[in-house]
């Protein structure tokens, strides 16, 4: 059918060419006349061989319009007509169409006619003399092998295009090196036939290498079903289906889309309008470039160049283009592509698609991470600082105990010396008695018993001192504060006597408290010694320190140490417990500060007040019961 069409159109073309040579001069004069009139619009007729809406037609005419409009300063008036010869037998209405055209454009001479596709050029050649005498004609979308060997009337020139089935098959074989079978899909329309012809020609070169299956006399449904059952390593070459065997008419690339979706193998095509509609790729003829090239020629002709002087342009090289979505769908390796092959429709990765969301999410995560890290660091630092503070308190407290011990040296020496002295004298007395006749055995027995108890007494003093002065790891235990206070008072008895101070107690029944024995002893020791110091100027007979214990309102324990000394100056009260504030000449001012630190570390409070009559009272409280308050475990304590 295609061949039947083709030969008569060639004859027409030759005839038209002869007419055109005659009319050339008149045709060329038109642009100049128009310019002289004061720039009337350029009239351009685009004559389409197929339907207006065929993608190829749309792409071509759009490219032509855009290129022309941009290429001249003059206003361009476009007229478009479509023969729709691809779907209908043109012969049935050609004469009427020509008359219609004549009638329609009688008063609108064209500056140039652009014929798109073979049917349009055939028509133009046949009717140019009557419709557009002398008007130059530029054609496009013209298969190179269709044009080959033709001669055109003067004033007719154009660009050719070619399908590249060989290039497309080479590309397919590159991507599917193991393919042994080609399925060629095509319709029965005029364009379909032309495409199939090109494919048939090319496939001759692959005889023996590739087995070819022709799907060109089937309905679209049959073809679609067939490709859906292909073995995967098959090459499907889609030519064009504008009409199938059942006479159904299609837009070829719409037919392609459904077929390609169903196909089990990659589908290749040869024109760029198929790109994005299911072909994996191909060496594509670019209809858009074709349109641009034709418009370029038209501009040259409109610019005054003689159309006859412009030879028919050879086809532009086909473009290698592939669809990355299809490559991925069939697992084809992009690296197998020849150099310079354009990969289109690259599926935007997650990154491209959601870049800002990802950046935002990452930022948010990073921010959270930073915040968490900062919090962890802060927690670590705080814990370290707490540990350091406790360590420091422990060391300070120890230093303060040593200082206290220094103050008590005389008393301590006396306490140890007394039993030592007694022991020595007893031993020496016993020695003398051994020489006596008779041996006073009872007396010696008494002496030995006394020596034993004095020795124990001395070691008790030392043990006591060691527990107070030694560096010891803080140890939380349940304590009877009354017993603890009695211990401290015992330790201070000699010192108190030396200073002529009466030590008085008023102990209430107490619940056990949880704390570090030595540190709490230190607090009491400190408060009592402070009280003694405060009474240096008090008459000896009046010097008295009273230690009271009682439960406080909250079930805790309250301890008060009162003296009758000079009291606390009002201005010192607020800073009394701060470090390095002292009223003593040789004091460092750490005693009360340490006492406060210790009491607070035990969850208690300490305060000082002046008595109504004279002297001052220091009170501290400790929470009751055997349980440490939160954050007061033994290892926290230092």
């Amino acid at each position, binding site marked *: 059918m295609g061949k039947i069409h083709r030969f008569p159109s060639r004859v027409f073309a030759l005839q038209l060419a002869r007419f055109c040579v005659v009319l050339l001069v008149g045709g060329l004069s038109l642009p100049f006349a128009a310019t002289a009139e004061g720039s009337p619009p350029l009239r351009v007729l685009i004559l389409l061989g197929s339907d207006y809406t065929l993608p190829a037609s749309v792409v071509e005419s759009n490219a032509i319009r855009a290129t022309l409009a941009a290429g001249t300063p003059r206003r361009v008036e476009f007229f478009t007509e479509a023969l729709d010869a691809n779907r209908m037998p043109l012969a049935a209405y050609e004469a009427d169409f020509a008359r219609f055209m004549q009638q329609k454009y009688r008063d609108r001479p064209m500056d140039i006619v652009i014929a798109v596709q073979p049917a349009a050029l055939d028509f133009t050649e046949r009717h140019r003399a009557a419709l557009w005498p002398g008007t130059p004609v530029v054609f496009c979308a013209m298969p190179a092998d269709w044009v080959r060997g033709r001669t055109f009337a003067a004033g007719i020139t154009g660009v050719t295009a070619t399908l590249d089935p060989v290039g497309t098959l080479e590309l397919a074989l590159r991507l599917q090196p193991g393919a042994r079978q080609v399925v060629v899909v095509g319709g029965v329309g005029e364009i379909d036939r032309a495409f199939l012809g090109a494919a048939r020609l090319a496939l001759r070169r692959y005889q023996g290498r590739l087995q070819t299956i022709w799907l060109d006399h089937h309905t679209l449904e049959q073809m679609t079903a067939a490709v859906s059952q292909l073995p995967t390593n098959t090459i499907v070459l889609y030519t064009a289906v504008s009409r199938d065997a059942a006479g159904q008419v299609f837009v070829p690339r719409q037919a392609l889309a459904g077929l390609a979706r169903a196909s089990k193998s990659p589908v290749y095509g040869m024109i760029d309008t198929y790109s994005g509609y299911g072909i994996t790729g191909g060496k594509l003829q670019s209809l858009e470039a074709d349109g641009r090239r034709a418009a370029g020629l038209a501009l040259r002709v409109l610019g005054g160049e003689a159309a006859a002087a412009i030879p028919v342009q050879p086809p532009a090289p086909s473009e290698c283009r592939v669809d990355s979505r299809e490559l991925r769908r069939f697992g084809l390796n992009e690296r197998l592509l020849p150099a310079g092959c354009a990969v289109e429709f690259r599926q935007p990765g997650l990154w491209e698609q959601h870049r800002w969301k990802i950046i935002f999410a990452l930022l948010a995560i990073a921010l959270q991470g930073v915040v968490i890290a900062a919090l962890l660091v802060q927690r670590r630092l705080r814990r370290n600082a707490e540990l350091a503070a406790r360590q420091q308190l422990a060391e300070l407290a120890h230093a303060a105990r040593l200082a206290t011990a220094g103050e008590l040296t005389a008393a301590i020496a006396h306490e140890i010396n007394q039993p030592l002295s007694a022991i*020595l004298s007893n031993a020496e007395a016993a020695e003398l008695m051994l020489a006596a006749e008779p041996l006073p055995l009872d007396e010696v027995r008494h002496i030995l018993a006394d020596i034993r108890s004095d020795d124990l007494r001395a070691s008790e003093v030392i043990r006591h001192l060691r527990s107070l002065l030694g560096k010891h790891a803080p140890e939380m235990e349940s304590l009877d504060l009354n017993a603890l206070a009695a211990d401290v008072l015992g330790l201070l008895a000699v010192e108190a006597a030396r200073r002529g101070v009466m030590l008085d107690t008023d102990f209430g029944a107490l619940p056990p408290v949880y704390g570090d024995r030595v540190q709490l002893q230190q607090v009491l020791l400190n408060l009592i010694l402070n009280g003694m110091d405060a009474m240096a100027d008090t008459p000896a007979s009046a010097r008295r320190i009273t230690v009271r214990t009682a439960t406080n309102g909250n079930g805790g324990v309250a301890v008060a140490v009162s003296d009758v000394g000079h009291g606390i100056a009002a201005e010192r009260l607020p800073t009394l417990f701060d470090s390095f504030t002292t009223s003593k000449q040789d004091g460092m001012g750490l005693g009360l500060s340490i006492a406060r630190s210790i009491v607070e570390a035990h969850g208690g409070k300490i305060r000082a007040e002046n008595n109504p009559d004279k002297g001052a009272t220091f009170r501290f409280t400790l929470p009751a019961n055997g349980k440490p308050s939160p954050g007061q475990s033994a290892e926290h304590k230092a």
Partner: protein
Amino acid sequence: MSDIAPIVHVVDDDASVRTALTRLLQAAGHAVSAWESAGAFLQAGASAARGCIVLDLRMAEMDGLELQRALAQQNPGLPIIFLTGHGDLATGVRAMKAGAVDFLTKPVERETLLAAIANALARDTVNHVAHEELLTLQRRYATLTPREREVFARVVAGLPNKQISMEIGAAERTVKLHRARVMEKMQAGSLAELVRAADRLGAAHTMRFS
């Protein structure tokens, strides 16, 4: 000369030390009397007795130095040995200045303590002998008549009989008689002895020329 054995008074507030010292000193042959405080010792009037005091310097209530001051009133002759747990130089110096015979650091060894006690008792004996002598001289002096005391004072002042007779308005021979009686009553073998007796008496209480 002493008819009563000297007593070593142990004053220490620490019962075990007190007991131990008592034992030791008794075993060493001393008569010992133990006191738990300086106050108890003073109240008992024991300070009048002969002997010495072994005193703990650092005691509750009244400390050793206070006792020393009180004793200086009651019985200045009673020697005190201080014991201290802590060799405090300033206290030691003060004690020695106030008349302590010794200052020992606890724990004290037997030899040291016994030597100090021997020393103290010796001093007490000396003090006692001197005291006895003074008492004898005072008894003898008490036997002198007022006229004889006038002559005594002038003789030991070195006045010749003639001048004495003029001063007291008596005959020179009478003066000689008084003088011989004074020598006899004061049991002085020579003028020099008489002068020494007058000296001792004068140190005890001022001899007044009437």
